């Protein structure tokens, strides 16, 4: 588990708007400057690289995490299963595995194509999670809402993962306070009926990856 002191030292990869790597920056200092830039110019001109994971259980229901009161942005909103910044010396695949362990307390493995499908069919998904990269979005706008109704929009490079896990979960830090399973149809309806409960991320990405999620559900049902 990462201690608070280590978190303040966390270094993340920073890019310019042309997706050229500028270098490593301290996360807290970087975001402070980025918020200032957004406030002044109405936009941010530097990007970070993040990951987003949509995790299903073996029945094909989607796990959503609620961001706890400790989170300053998107507080108490339901969000994708896992989201995180790519740190120094990390690949997106590694970031997903680290964050699965750090946030929800489970081991995961990132696999591709046939290996992903075979693992779903042949292994006990209560023991570890299996994730697969869908794609990297070079120009994703992440929306962060504050309690005072203000919001900021930060451009990101983000790598999207999908995966399956059916075992125990533990909130390792206090950044998540609820984990809940939703049927895909249920969440699509919820996003329309109660948009105020969900992050902008979900409203963009769940409809966008609906087909990918459905494909995976079909695969799980055929297991």
């Amino acid at each position: 588990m990462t201690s608070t002191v280590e978190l303040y030292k966390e270094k993340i990869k920073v890019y310019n708007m042309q997706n050229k790597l500028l270098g490593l920056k301290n996360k807290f200092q970087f975001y402070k400057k980025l918020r200032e830039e957004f406030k002044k110019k109405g936009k941010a001109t530097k990007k970070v690289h993040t990951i987003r994971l949509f995790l299903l259980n073996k029945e094909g229901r989607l796990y959503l995490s609620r961001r706890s009161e400790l989170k300053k942005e998107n507080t108490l909103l339901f969000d994708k299963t896992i989201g995180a910044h790519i740190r120094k010396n990390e690949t997106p695949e590694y970031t997903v595995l680290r964050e699965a362990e750090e946030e929800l307390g489970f081991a995961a493995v990132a696999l591709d194509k046939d290996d992903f499908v075979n693992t779903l069919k042949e292994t006990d998904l209560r023991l570890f999670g299996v994730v697969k990269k869908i794609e990297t979005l070079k120009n994703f706008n992440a929306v962060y809402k504050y309690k005072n109704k203000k919001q900021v929009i930060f451009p990101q490079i983000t790598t999207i993962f999908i995966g399956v896990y059916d075992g125990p979960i533990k909130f390792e830090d206090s950044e998540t306070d609820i984990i809940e399973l939703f049927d895909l149809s249920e969440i699509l309806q919820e996003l329309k009926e109660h948009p105020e409960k969900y992050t902008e991320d979900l409203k963009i990405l769940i409809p966008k990856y609906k087909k990918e999620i459905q494909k995976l559900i079909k695969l799980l049902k055929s297991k």
Partner: protein
Amino acid sequence: MSEQVKVFSKNRSFLKIVDKSDHHKKMMQEFFKKGKVSTHHRHSKILFLTSQGKLILQKRSKWKGDNPGVWDKTVGGHLFRNETFDFCAVRESAEELQIPSTVILKKDLSQALKLVDLDVMGLMFLLKLDKKDISERKLPSGKTWKEPSPTAFYLGYYDGPIRFETKEASGFRISTLSEIKKEIKENPKAFTIDLIKIIKRWEKFIKPLKLK
């Protein structure tokens, strides 16, 4: 598989062993016809806290007949035939959220905490065996009904992983007492009547463990 439970008369004498869901239906029908239920089952109900004193609550799945889709105490259920209150509490914790646990005496808690890693297993003790408790349930239609149910209330501590059986629960949360109280005030419908009663009744026990 059908679940078999013991049924007792109003004056607490043992009547028979029945199928749980069949009998439950009969009790409900009796309630709506006569305004009360003449037989009862026994229950164990457990509220688990983390060692920091946060409440672990389960979200009842939307497929449950009573109280679907609302936040509830950590675990609870009926005593099966030949079960004690203690064993029922241990079984329900294992079945619903896969919390391995045992029941100890309250006076042994601080001793037990020296031996047991709460990341690995839960410890619980009996708060009260309330023979006159009444369980109030809400149906999907919004109607409520009550059954008299002698209930053993337990308070537990657990810091480990949780896996929910999705037919029973669709999620879980770990929240502070003040967060839950605030939400109950704002939106009582999102919680079971049971949980609201338990919090009110045992509030002074809902606090962090004092580790020596």
